[in-house]
């Protein structure tokens, strides 16, 4: 049954996954997401599920591929350097049209980087990440509650569109504790006639595969996949709009950056500056339409990110060069303060008046 508890973000992901019917988890230790694995290690054996600590992130994602091929709900979690290692497998999962959940609790990079929160895997998550033409559905939680809610949603969307989904969190979301209302266990089952469960001598064999040596065939599979992606773009864009009705300045931020941005919006409004926030909840598909609409109204966009500026490119594509788009960011594990955001907005305000 539904219950309200105080939990770490990483634990909320794990419990929400279990309540969404996920009984298979494969992982490898890496800070700051290890609590997901620890939680699964404790819970899965008690409920007839599978927890397996793989020999590497590469192996873990390929175990995910195997379970996904059998039609069962399955997930893995990691943090930035580990998610880079998983890209090969994610490309195969996308290329074989399999549903699965990959969680990235981001830390600073590149390379080994650091262990503090970051959003610098935005490009990797939203533009494909591995080789070939493909996308993931990418959901970005901004609270522990959303860590849980978006985990369930990710499983449903992955099943619905036969594609991998990613929960793109950051170290803050993973580590902080907040009250969370956990849903009742609810599994939305989808028929998976393509799954390799054994023919039972009753049907021709199923093949899960991403190899097409005839170029016309490979092109056709890519086109079919992208037709599905267009449906996702039409149906599954999610965002939150905050104080945008009369806004002159539109902050765009997700995850922890969106929470800091909300504080900045409130403080700016107390000073008479009409700021608002568009918070993408899906960063693929990106909320292009609300950004385009805002471009008719606002004087400037401010992309608030924990990176050297990645999402800013998608904002520019969406607003189509109609208004200035400026960056307000910290990187390497640092988090922008409300004051830094306010300062950026006030500079624009001064420039325009």
């Amino acid at each position, binding site marked *: 049954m539904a219950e309200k508890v105080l939990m770490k973000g990483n634990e909320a992901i794990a419990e929400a996954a279990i309540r969404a019917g996920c009984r*298979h988890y*494969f992982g490898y230790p890496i800070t700051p997401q290890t609590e997901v694995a620890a939680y699964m290690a404790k819970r899965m054996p008690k409920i007839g599920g*599978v927890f*397996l600590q*793989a*020999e*590497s992130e*590469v*192996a*873990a994602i*390929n*175990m*995910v*591929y*195997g*379970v*996904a*091929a*059998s039609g*069962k709900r*399955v997930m893995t979690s990691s943090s930035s350097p580990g998610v880079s290692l998983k890209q*090969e*497998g994610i490309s*195969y999962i996308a290329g*074989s049209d399999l549903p699965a959940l990959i969680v990235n609790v981001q830390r600073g990079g590149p390379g080994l980087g650091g262990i503090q929160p970051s959003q610098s895997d935005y490009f990797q998550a939203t533009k494909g990440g591995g080789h070939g033409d493909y996308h993931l559905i990418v959901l970005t939680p901004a609270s522990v509650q959303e860590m849980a809610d978006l985990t369930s949603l990710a499983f449903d969307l992955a099943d619905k569109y036969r594609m991998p989904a990613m929960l793109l969190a950051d170290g803050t979301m993973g580590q902080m504790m907040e009250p969370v209302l956990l849903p009742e266990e609810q599994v939305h089952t989808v028929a998976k006639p393509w799954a*390799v*469960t*054994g*023919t*039972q*001598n*009753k049907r021709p*064999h*199923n*093949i*899960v*595969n*991403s*190899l097409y040596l005839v170029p016309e065939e490979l092109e056709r599979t890519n086109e079919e996949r992208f037709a599905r992606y267009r449906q996702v773009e039409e149906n599954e864009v999610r965002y939150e709009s905050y104080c945008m009705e009369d806004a002159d300045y539109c902050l765009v931020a997700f995850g922890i950056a969106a929470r800091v941005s909300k504080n900045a919006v409130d403080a700016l409004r107390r000073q008479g500056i009409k700021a608002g926030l568009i918070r993408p909840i899906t960063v693929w598909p990106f909320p292009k339409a609300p950004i385009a609409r805002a471009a008719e109204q606002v004087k400037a966009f401010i992309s608030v990110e924990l990176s050297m500026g990645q999402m800013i490119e998608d904002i520019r594509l969406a607003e189509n060069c109609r208004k200035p788009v400026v960056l307000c960011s910290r990187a390497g594990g640092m988090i922008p303060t409300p004051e830094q955001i306010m300062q950026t907005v006030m500079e624009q305000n001064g420039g325009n008046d």
Partner: protein
Amino acid sequence: MAVVFEKPKSLTDAEFHYCPGCTHGIIHRLVAEAIDTLGIEGRTVGVAPVGCAVMAYNYFACDMVEAAHGRAPAVATGLKRSMPENIIFTYQGDGDLASIGMAETVHAATRNENITIIFVNNAIYGMTGGQMAPTSLPGQVTQTSPYGRDVATAGYPVKVCELLAALDGPTYITRVAVNNVKNVRNAKKAIEKAFRNQVEGKGFSLVEVVSSCPTNWGMTPQKALEWVETNMIPYYPLGVYKDKTAKEEA
């Protein structure tokens, strides 16, 4: 009219793409015969590798998954853990299993994952046109060891059975060959046992099949089979390297 010879049920009607004289055809047949004999076709799922056998998914009549290069044991682990009642096998070459997939192989073995691995060792990368494999012999000339494999710079061949037999985990590790009738008969028995072990829940079984590659070795099929006898088998001795079931059966 009495039927004296027929295609195993577990093979499809698809035409093999393998080169003339390649022993993959024999090994495919032995795997299919084992599946038929045990009556497990309807619950078997195979995992194809990257390499010459990449299109094995078209040849085996059971459900099939195509894995990334070297990752078949991890994919098989996922399949087996999600469907313990199914029979899961991988079919892999030497580059796939002993080079890029070494970590996946060793760890599936040490977990004693209840899967069956058919490992085809022909001492060369066939599909990409004859490059040095982890199992290429010292001195062997390939496209990427044009002066012969120099162990001083390229290291020594990997002896997979000897290496895996040193682990506590795996159940059954054996090396066979398919270069003559007697060896093919032994290979058939070993492959069947490797599948039966899984059916009986006994754990990880790997059969290394010493094989030939006439095309990339630059030999006639007959000459290649002779080379297996005179060069491969002395370096890769045939036999059972580990068998946890032997004690129970004795």
